C-alpha cells in the first residue's frame, strides 16, 4: 500500500494539431481512489482513454509501477490491459450476450476454467453488484443503472489491479449513484485495487476520492491536484474553489 502505481510524466494529449491538454504530471498511489475532475469538454474522458491505451499520447509517458505503458510492445500492453477493469459511460455491455456471458467472456478467454466454473464466478460477480438472478438477461432487458452495475461486474471479472470508471453516476438517480459510490469503495477495499474515476459529481468526489487532479480547459493543463477535501479548504485557485463549491459565491438572480 502507498507505493506509486500510476505515474504520468509530461503527458500531452492532442488530436492532430489541436492540443487538448499539456504538461500533465501526476502520480496515483496503490489503493488510491483518484478522481479526474474538470468542466465539461475539458478532456477528462480523453485522459482516461490515454491511461487505458485507446489513445496514444502526443508526447510524454505513462507508467504502471515500473512498466512503461506508452513504449511497450503490443503484446506486453495487452497483458497489462488484462489487469485493468474499465467501466464505460454507457456500460458498453456486449448486446448479443447475456449478463453471465458478458462477465464470463474475459474468464473464458484468459483462464482455463470450465464453463461451469465460469458461470459460477460470473454469478458471484453479478451478486456482488446486486444482480443475483439476472444471469440470463440480455443488456437491453434491464435498466440503465443495472447495465452500469453489470458493466462493473464485468470490469471486475479478472480481479483487476486498477479499475477505471468513466462518469459512473451519469444518468443515475441520486440513490443509485450513492450506492455505486459505496460499491466503488467496498471494491477498492475488498480487491485492494487502485481506482481511477472520471466524474464531475461533487457529492461523489467528496465521498470517494482521496486524490485528484483538476483539468482546466482554458489553460489547457492541470491546475490543481491532491485530496479534493484539502483542495476545497486550501486551494488558492479561484477556479478550483468555484468548481468545488458549485459557484456558491457567485451572484444569483432573485436573491
Amino acid at each position, binding site marked *: 500500500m502507498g507505493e506509486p502505481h500510476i505515474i504520468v510524466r509530461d503527458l500531452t494529449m492532442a488530436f492532430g494539431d489541436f492540443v487538448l491538454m499539456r504538461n500533465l504530471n501526476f502520480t496515483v498511489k496503490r489503493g488510491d481512489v483518484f478522481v479526474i475532475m474538470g468542466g465539461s469538454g475539458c478532456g477528462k474522458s480523453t485522459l482516461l482513454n490515454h491511461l*487505458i*491505451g*485507446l489513445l496514444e499520447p502526443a508526447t510524454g509517458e505513462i507508467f504502471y509501477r515500473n512498466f512503461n505503458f506508452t513504449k511497450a510492445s503490443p503484446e506486453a500492453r*495487452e*497483458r497489462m*490491459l*488484462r489487469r*485493468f477493469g*474499465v467501466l*464505460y*459511460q*454507457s456500460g*458498453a*455491455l*456486449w*448486446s*448479443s450476450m447475456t449478463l453471465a456471458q458478458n462477465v464470463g*467472456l*474475459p474468464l*473464458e*478467454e*484468459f483462464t482455463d476454467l470450465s464453463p461451469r466454473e465460469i458461470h459460477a464466478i460470473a454469478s458471484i460477480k453479478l451478486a456482488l453488484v446486486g444482480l443475483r438472478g439476472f444471469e440470463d438477461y440480455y443488456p437491453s432487458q434491464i435498466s440503465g443503472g443495472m447495465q452500469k452495475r453489470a458493466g462493473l461486474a*464485468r470490469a471486475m471479472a479478472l480481479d483487476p489491479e486498477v479499475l477505471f470508471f468513466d462518469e459512473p453516476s451519469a444518468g443515475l438517480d441520486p440513490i443509485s449513484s450513492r450506492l455505486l459510490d459505496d460499491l466503488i469503495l467496498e471494491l477498492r477495499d475488498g480487491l485492494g485495487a487502485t481506482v481511477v474515476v472520471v466524474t464531475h459529481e461533487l457529492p461523489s468526489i467528496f465521498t470517494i476520492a482521496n486524490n485528484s487532479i483538476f483539468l482546466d480547459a482554458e489553460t489547457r493543463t492541470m491546475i490543481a491536484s491532491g485530496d479534493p477535501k484539502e483542495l476545497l479548504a486550501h486551494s488558492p485557485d479561484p477556479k478550483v474553489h468555484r468548481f468545488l463549491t458549485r459557484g456558491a459565491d457567485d451572484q444569483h*438572480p432573485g436573491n
Partner: protein
Amino acid sequence: MEAEVTTDQVTDLNFEQGRDSSLIIHLVGSWRMHHGLPSVGRVLHEVSQTKPRSIGFETSRLGAWDSGLLTFVARTIDLGRSRNIPVALEGLPEGLVRLVELAEAVPEKKDARVKTQSAPLLQRVGTATINYADGAEDFLTFLGGVVIAIGRMFQREARFRTSDLMIEIQDCGVSALGIVAMISFLVGTILAFMGAVQLQQFGAEIYVADLVAIGIVREMGAMMTAIIMAGRTGASFAAQLGTMKVTQEIDALTTMGISPMEFLVLPRVVALILMMPLLAVFANVFGVMGGAFVGVAMLKIALPTFLREAWNALTLGNLFGGLFKAMVYGVIIAIAGCLRGFQCGRSSSAVGDAATQAVVTGIVWIVVACGIMAFLFNMLGI
C-alpha cells in the same frame, strides 16, 4: 395613462433625441415573433445620422413581448458595442433585462464560429486524392489484419467464439436462401427470354439451354448472389459493428485485451467465405430452373432435353470458376462491411452512413473484381 395599449397593437418603434445627445428608442405595441420584427437597420440608420453618445429605451407603450424583443435588444447592444456607444437597459421590463444579462453573461468564445470557406478547386481535388489514398491504405491494413487473423485461426490461437461463427453462418447462409432463390430464378428467366428472342430467328432455340447454363454458372449466379449479400449482409455487418462502436462495446473488447479483429471480424469473414460458394451453387440451380421454365413454357422444349443440353454445355472449369468468384466476392463483402463498421463515427447518423458506404464499397469492388477475374480466366483459358 396608455390604457389603450393592447396586445394586438402593431409593432413599431420611434426615435427621440434625449439629453446629452442620447438616442431614446420608443418601443410601441406588441413585440412578438410571429408579428415579424422591425429591422435593426432602422436603428443603424438613426445612429449613423445622429451619432448619439448613448442609447436608451422607453417602453411605456410596450404591449406583450417575447424573444422577438429580446433579439432586437441584443442586436442593438451588438450594434452599440461595435461603435463604442453604451446601451442603457434601464427603461426595459425587468424580465427582459435579466434575459439580456443572461445572454451577455458569457462572452463569445474566440474562434468558436465555424468558418465556411470553400477551398479552391485544385485544393479540393488534392484533398480528395489524399483521402482516397488514405482510404486505400486503410483497406490494405484491414485486409492484412484479416489475413493475420485467419492465419492465427489455423494455428488455433485466434480468440473468437464458435457459437458466434455458427450464428453468422446461419445469418448469411440459411436465412438468405429465399431471396437468393427468387432473384436467381428471375435472372435465369430473363437470360433465357432475351436469348430466346434472338435464337428463335435462327431456329436455334435449344441453345437457350447452353446460354443459360454457362451464363448463370460462370458469371451471373455468383454475381447476383454477391449483390444480394452486399445489400443484405454487408450492410448488416457495418450497422452491427458501427453500433458497437457507438456504444463503446468495441473499446470494451480492446481494453480487455481481446482483439476485435479476431472476435468480431473473423467469424463474419469466415462465415461469408464458407457460405458464398454454397449460396452460389444454390443460385446456379435456381437460375437454370428459371431458364428451363422459359424453355418449357415459351419454346416448348421438353424438360429432359433442356436439362441434358444444359448439362452438356457445362464444364467443371465453369462451375469451379463461378464458385471461386463467389468466394472472392464473399471476402470483399465481409471486409467492406466490417471495415466501414469499424470506421463508423460515434453518432447514430454515422451508423447509417457506414451501412450505406458498406454496400456501395462492396458492390463497386465486386464489379471491379468481376472484371479482373473475367480477364484473368480468359488469359488462363479457363
